[in-house]
């Protein structure tokens, strides 16, 4: 279970993001070791999602640097970051509602496909093979996350399945690092447990590292190798689950100061 010795996959150093006068993330440094499951926790508004958005290129950090596998990806557009090997899900589900589950995952594969426009119009054999491959792979990924209604429009899937589809779609890009933004929000205990199992399988069978934002402490404490705690945009603690659990500042941030 340990994540030692494999090197660093993602490194954020002294990352700051300000919106006008508001400092959403302040000087946060942070690493994800290869093969690890790492969590970011913190009260609402602590800057977790802002931090995610900087890692995936949706926001450009005001200062600081993000590097992935040793390459600087700070301020790169989202599709290049996806191509480099980071995929994500969204806290407020952002599926392509009028596409089927399979089509959603096919869009997720976009950065790995090569067919050009002319090949698509003329249906060249390479393009036909690639299309067939995407469908097979999409269905395999949907099976992997446990979604059975492959050809249903994503908008008509039940909530839990939509969350699963978000993960399958992100996996479509063959990521090395998967960013999950509150994946168990709105799930019941059993579904959360299934998801925890899924993350373990991802790491063991597919070598995908996971960076998790999560409010469900049972999931976080069970699955994480390492936890970083943010509060008001600043890193207030980090360490192994048992260390963070007993950290005084973390308890203060969550429960308020007792002084």
């Amino acid at each position, binding site marked *: 279970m340990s994540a030692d010795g494999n090197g660093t996959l993602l490194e954020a150093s002294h990352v700051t993001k300000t919106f006008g006068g508001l400092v959403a993330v302040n000087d946060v440094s942070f690493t994800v070791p290869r093969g690890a499951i790492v969590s970011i926790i913190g009260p609402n508004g602590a800057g977790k999602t802002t931090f995610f958005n900087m890692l*995936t*290129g*949706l926001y450009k950090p005001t200062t600081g640097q993000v590097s992935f596998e040793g390459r600087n990806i700070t301020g790169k*557009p*989202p*599709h290049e970051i*996806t*191509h480099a090997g980071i*995929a*994500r899900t*969204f806290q407020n589900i*952002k*599926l*392509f*509602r*009028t*596409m089927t589950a399979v*089509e959603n995952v*096919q*869009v*997720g*594969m*976009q*950065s*790995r*496909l090569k*067919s050009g*426009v002319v090949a*698509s*119009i*003329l*249906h060249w054999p390479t*393009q036909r093979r*690639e*299309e067939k491959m*995407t469908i097979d792979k999409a269905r395999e990924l949907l099976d992997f996350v446990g979604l059975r209604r492959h050809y249903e*429009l994503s*908008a*008509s899937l039940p909530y839990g399945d939509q969350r699963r589809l978000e993960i399958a*779609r*992100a996996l*479509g*890009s063959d990521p090395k690092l998967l960013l999950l933004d509150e994946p168990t929000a709105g799930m019941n205990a059993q579904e959360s447990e299934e998801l925890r199992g899924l993350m373990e399988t991802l790491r063991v069978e597919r070598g995908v590292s996971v960076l998790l934002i999560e409010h469900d402490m049972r999931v976080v404490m069970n699955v994480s190798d390492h936890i970083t705690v943010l509060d008001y945009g600043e890193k207030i603690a980090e360490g192994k689950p048992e260390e963070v659990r007993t950290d005084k500042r973390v308890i203060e941030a969550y429960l308020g100061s007792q002084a």
Partner: protein
Amino acid sequence: MSGAKSGAAALRSGFGSTRDLLPRWAWILIFLALALLFPYLVPEILSGGSGDDLLDASVNTLGYVIMALGLNIVVGFAGLLDLGYVAFYAFGAFVVGWLGSGQFEGVNLDFITDVPSTLPGIHVNFVVIVIVAAAFTGIWGVILGAPTLRLRGDYLAIVTLAFGEIVPRVFENWEYVSNGRQGITPIDRVYFPGVGELNYPIELEGIYYVGLAMVLITLFVNIRMRDSRLGRAWIAVREDEVAAAAMGVNLVRTKLWAYAVGAAFGGFAGAFLGAYRNTVNVDQFEFGFSVFILCMIIVGGMGNVAGVILGAIALSMLDRFVLPQLNDIPDKIGLEFDLTAVNFGIFGFFLLVMMVLRPEGFIPSTRRRLELHSGDEVGDVAADRSAEVAPGEALYEARH
């Protein structure tokens, strides 16, 4: 109130259940056969002058169908509201004006035509011209699309509207390329080696088949692109730009392709209409034309290829045939105006009726229908429909 509602429901379900009567390929064969036999069916239905009028309207309609299919890529697939599509019509039409007329007197260049070589100007074969027109206009689609990439919705619409005004005005004032308000005329007739020069406007069958072939090429490219990796990216961008980017869709490239392909079809059709009408004149490139093509898409069913074709045929035939035929009706009942003079008022009325009864168009795409009916209306639509439509469809509506 309830009468109107059930009427609307019947209209909504009508097309869906008819469509299920035959398999898809059978429908395609039927429509293809009808389109091929059409010039020979016309004299059977209408004799004399109105038969010729109908065929003339049909040739124009073929051009409009291509444009509607092109604009549908930009607006229907990629969700980029473009109100300046007329600019691409202008580019395409001027290409045929430049390469198939005596406009440039200083040059004398002939390529596979039967124009006497003593005539000045550039005279290139029509097939070459339409390819050049599509490529040239496609490039302009990218040039005009590039500055708008960061804009969405209303803002995008206003900027594209401005481009739709700028382009014709530039042509109007740049007399060297456009001949100013006189326009470029005459345009070389369409010529094929072995067939000879087509004899329109006296015999319209030949040019009709040229137009039909161009529609089929457009349709083929349209469907292939829709079902490709790029087509999925277009729909993803329309649905949620942020999510699409995060899934690896290159927003810049995806949008520029939509502009390029959409514009290229505008130029393709523009060259055809320019050649058929034998004149290229800036008066043809008014803002109203952009709206006219957009209306075809909305009425037919945005995003759905079959719907867009139907919408284009309906509106274009109304404009080019039905209204002129009924032109003197107001006069007969003592009103002093022509029906064609108020054509836009009539289109507006039909658009209004459509928006109330069937906002998703004649033949909506399943995707669009979901977008328009995912709100409060779903309950009563589902209730209205459950009795009268195919069970599969009712289930679909009720489920979300």
